[in-house]
């Protein structure tokens, strides 16, 4: 899942080396925390969250077929 998120996000940003994903997991869910360079935050969120929504749609589609737990993608600076 981490490498899917990286594959999606890195080509969208100006500083791919600053793309970081932290994972937190409990019994019910897995939270992926995506952090990008400050300059790139707007790019991964997009106008009215359009890009963030597209990233989540692809990630959650994959999660439904591979993960039993609920997957959440958080985007932060």
């Amino acid at each position, binding site marked *: 899942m981490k490498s899917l998120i990286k594959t*999606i996000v890195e080509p969208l940003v100006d500083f791919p080396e600053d793309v970081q994903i932290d994972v937190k997991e409990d019994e019910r869910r897995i939270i992926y925390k995506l952090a990008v360079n400050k300059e790139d935050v707007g790019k991964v969120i997009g106008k009215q969250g359009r890009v963030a929504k597209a990233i989540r*749609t*692809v990630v959650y589609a994959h999660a439904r077929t591979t993960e039993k737990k609920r997957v959440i993608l958080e985007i932060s600076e």
Partner: protein
Amino acid sequence: MKELTATGTTVDDAINQALQELEVRKEDVDVRIIDEGKRGFLGIFGARPAIVRVTVKIDPVEETKKYLTKVCKEMGIDIKIDTSIEGRYVYYTLTSNQAGLLIGKRGQTLNALQTLSQLVINKYSDKHRIVRLDTENYRKKREESLIRLANRIANRVAREQKKYSLEPMPSFERKIIHNALAGHNKVTTYSEGSEPNRYIVISPK
């Protein structure tokens, strides 16, 4: 980005040197001359080699195709892509044995991949381009079912004289419905809400 500094007795010589090494054609690269070099006396005294910096240009259409292939691969879907270009529209037709997974509920996965691909292509392209993704003729089938839906709801709105909101859709799908009902004499259509949750309302005239 692939780039290379090359030297040669002349600038052309240095460029050819670089092209051979990178295995590309001249039209695929940008060349910056760092030093034009000097032939020197009898080609020996005071001679200085020419130095060039050669950068391989990124083809936005190819780069986006690679992006799609990689993302789908990470999703566990192997795809084959056919590309066609019409003006600023770039059409990618995907073939895989898991088209259902690629399309998602009401096309939402395909639409998300389309949004992301369009960002990638415009990152590399100097003119604005629009990406359209399709698989298994989904777009055509979806258009037909949207038109059927539009007519069915329009009849109901006309009969009950009560407006009806459809579920949120991307702009290119809303356009299909607006067009389908543009000539209807008993109902009118408009959009409400803000992207990405903008939806169509069909209301009595």
